[in-house]
């Protein structure tokens, strides 16, 4: 008798399912894949060798190097300070904590050009802080690498905090309590119990901020100016090449930047999958 019972769920209409999938995939192609392919097409159009030559031009190579090392410095500072911030936000209560927690996401909402303006207003060589640093340390901030790092730090501030914070919140504090009853010092508890649990999210937060930093343009174009070999980053260089109608140079550098960013994002994906597996 059982075989005669009719299924209670209504059969789905195949074209409806296909339609939805088709729409989503076409949108993805139209908005992401095709534009990205065009850049790759452009970059590789004159062949691998030409592309490499464009990137290896001293002025381009120096811009790429500057981008990479300032982003790396930023990612390290962000890692340390972001971890500290997340720790304080999760583990301590203090007046204004909710407000502070909300402010952390603010850089995402501020136009990056405005960010650049703010930094120039604060650290510019004619401004109070900038002049003081220049006088006492002989170091310019604006139109120099420190300005770039500052701009990148501002723009990517939420990345590490927001990837570490939820994990810290979830972290079973009983493990730390247990370690304390076993006579572990605070440093040992952090180093052997807490840190291993947040290592992966911390790393992925740092890598994400690194990937985001490589393409940063708005804040940097104001803060760093556009001085070749000194403060010209890869994104600013691409802008310059577009302006001077060297489409090949622009595409070649774009391909290089994108390849780096893609590999970092892929690495983050891998780390997150590993983290989820436990």
């Amino acid at each position, binding site marked *: 008798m059982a075989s005669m019972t009719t299924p209670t769920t209504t059969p789905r209409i195949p074209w409806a399912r296909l339609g939805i999938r088709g729409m989503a995939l076409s949108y993805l192609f139209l908005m992401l894949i095709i534009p990205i392919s065009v850049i790759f097409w452009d970059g590789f159009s004159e062949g691998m060798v030409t592309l490499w030559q464009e990137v290896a031009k001293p002025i381009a190579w120096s811009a790429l190097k500057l981008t990479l090392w300032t982003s790396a410095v930023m990612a390290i500072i962000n890692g340390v300070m972001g971890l500290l911030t997340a720790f304080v936000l999760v583990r301590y209560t203090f007046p204004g904590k909710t407000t502070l927690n909300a402010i952390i996401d603010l850089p995402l909402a501020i136009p990056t050009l405005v960010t650049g303006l703010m930094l120039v207003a604060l650290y510019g060589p004619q401004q109070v802080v900038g002049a003081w640093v220049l006088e006492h340390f002989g170091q310019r901030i604006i139109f120099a690498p420190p300005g770039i790092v500052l701009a990148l730090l501002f723009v990517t501030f939420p990345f590490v905090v927001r990837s570490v914070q939820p994990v810290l919140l979830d972290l*079973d504090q*009983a*493990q730390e*309590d*247990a*370690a*304390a*009853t*076993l*006579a*572990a*010092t605070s440093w*040992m508890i952090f180093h*052997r*119990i807490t840190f*291993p*649990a947040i290592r992966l999210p911390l790393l992925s937060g740092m890598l994400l901020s690194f990937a985001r930093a490589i393409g940063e343009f708005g804040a940097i174009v104001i803060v760093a100016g556009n001085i070749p070999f000194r403060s010209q980053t890869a994104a600013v260089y691409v802008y310059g090449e577009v302006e001077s109608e060297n489409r090949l140079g622009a595409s070649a550098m774009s391909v290089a930047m994108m390849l780096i960013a893609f590999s970092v994002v892929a690495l983050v994906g891998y780390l997150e999958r590993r983290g989820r597996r*436990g």
Partner: protein
Amino acid sequence: MSIVLEHLTKRYDGHPVVNNVSLEVADGEFFVLLGSSGSGKTTVLNMVAGLIRTDQGRILLHGRDVTHLPTQQRRVGMVFQNYALFQNMTLAENIEFGLQTRKVPKAERRHRRNELLELVGLAGLGGRLPKQISGGQQQRVALARALAYKPDVLLLDEPLGALDAKIRLELRRTLKTIQRETGITTILVTHDQEEAFELADRLGVMSFGRLMEVGYPEDLYKRPQTEFVATFLGTANLLVGLAQGEGVQLGALTFPLQDVSSLLHHDDRVQVLFRPEDVVLAESPEQLGAPRLGLGEVEQVTFGGSFERLRLRLPPLPGVRPIAPPVAFGGNAILVEATRSQDEAEQLPLRAGHNIWVGVRQVHALEHPGLRFLLLSDGSPLAQAAIQTAGHIARLAHARVTLLGYGLDGEAMHQHLQEAREQLGSGLAALDARSSAAAPAEAARQEVERQSYDLVVMGYNGQSEQIALAEHLLAVGEHHLLLIPAAQAAPTRILICVTTGEPGKEDVLFSGRLTRHLGATAVLLSVVPPEQGNGQQPARAERFLMGGERTLELLGVPAETAVRTGSAPDEIAAELAAGDYDMLVLGAPLPDADGNINLTGTISRLLATAKERPVLVVRAAVSRRGLDLPLIPSSARIHDLKEVV
């Protein structure tokens, strides 16, 4: 003594979650702290471990005062409910962790680790990660880890709470065996009564931050002293009867008591406990072979495995009030829980609706009658504020509360009582709401005639009709009076103004008892009139205060004393202004020839301060029957005094 806790107190936002807990655990003893969630038992354990800071009191481990030592230096082993194994380490690394932190050499570590894996029955699994083994196994590892460095004491925080029933039983035995073998002094915290009975050498029952009773499991079950413990442990039949000579009267029957309390007076109301297994059922009164409670009707029969559980309904007995099992609102029948062996059940099969004679083999009288509060409310904002504050106090005192509504119409009254019930919430020993159409004084008079109260509570902001009502309330019954001006947390610092002499003793005793429940501190103040300041009067006051301080000490209340010279209202006001007090205790004036108490004159000036903080008006002992205790108890009576509180 391995573990000594002295007057431990922990507050969050002014509310004590652990309230004046004192406890001694002997060497090698397995002590169990039992309580429902939120009773503060885990907080006590965390305070012993140093994971939560202690606000007041001391913790001694093997004679070492560890109250202010960090967890790392306390030498305690702890096991947590959710195992708390280090997820990134193997089982072996977990167990060795405590040895590593103490720099034990590697070879010795390995030896000890293998020994422990063997002890908890997991030999050979040291290389696994925590997530690769079951919950029961994880808890065994946690136990091994806690024992690795041979701690002074072992603390177990609901260690079996997260496990399946079957594994729980198995691990319970393992726990007991290992504790016996290692001989380590242990405190286990649980909400599971069966677990507590099986594991405990001795048992402590906690409720709302207070350690209600401590004793051997069998003693606490058969001879509890408080209503809370009687009903919390196992199933209880609890009735209120009258003390009569050597026994207690329930209806027409007088039960002899084996353990006659020295505190029982003739005609005192006394709570009487008998367990379901003490109930005898028979077809005729002659066959009972035990004192007869009456002819009951079987309401419900349930199969309980090796035994049968019955609920019986008996007609009301004159002068007897049931407490547990609770009777439905408006009912006056007496419900009785009984159990029988399957053998007995077969010989006399019973079903719902059958009539059967009910007898009781033995009863136990509870020594501590528990506090009873009456809250008066007309639904005004002032009354609601008073209800809120009184609720905090009643919860801490574990009091039985009756809410008496007056001056509202049908629907409004119903709604107000409903809201007040929700506001008072849980945590009271009992909550009853009644309403009266009479004027407040008359409504209260009828209510206190129906049953007596220890404390009547009313909202008070100094209006003259409130003073009149307060006078009326003091003229009826035998209760004290609490005037509350606003919603506030339970008082933490109480000024007790005492008159030197007999009436002052009751002030100290009752307010001391309440202070102890609140976990508050007290200052005893005596004001000496200046014109008699010839040296005799202050000395007498000081002697009296010393006695009062001593009495409070015996109650476990931290107290100080102060003597002031001048006019009483002025000096009390000055002390209030100086001392940051959140409650004032005054002795009520003595009643006149008609039994009326007059609150005008000097006392009205003091009552005016009740606009800022609650004022407790304590009725003088001469008008009350009962606690006829000398203020400085002789050693023979110290024990009795502790029992009262």
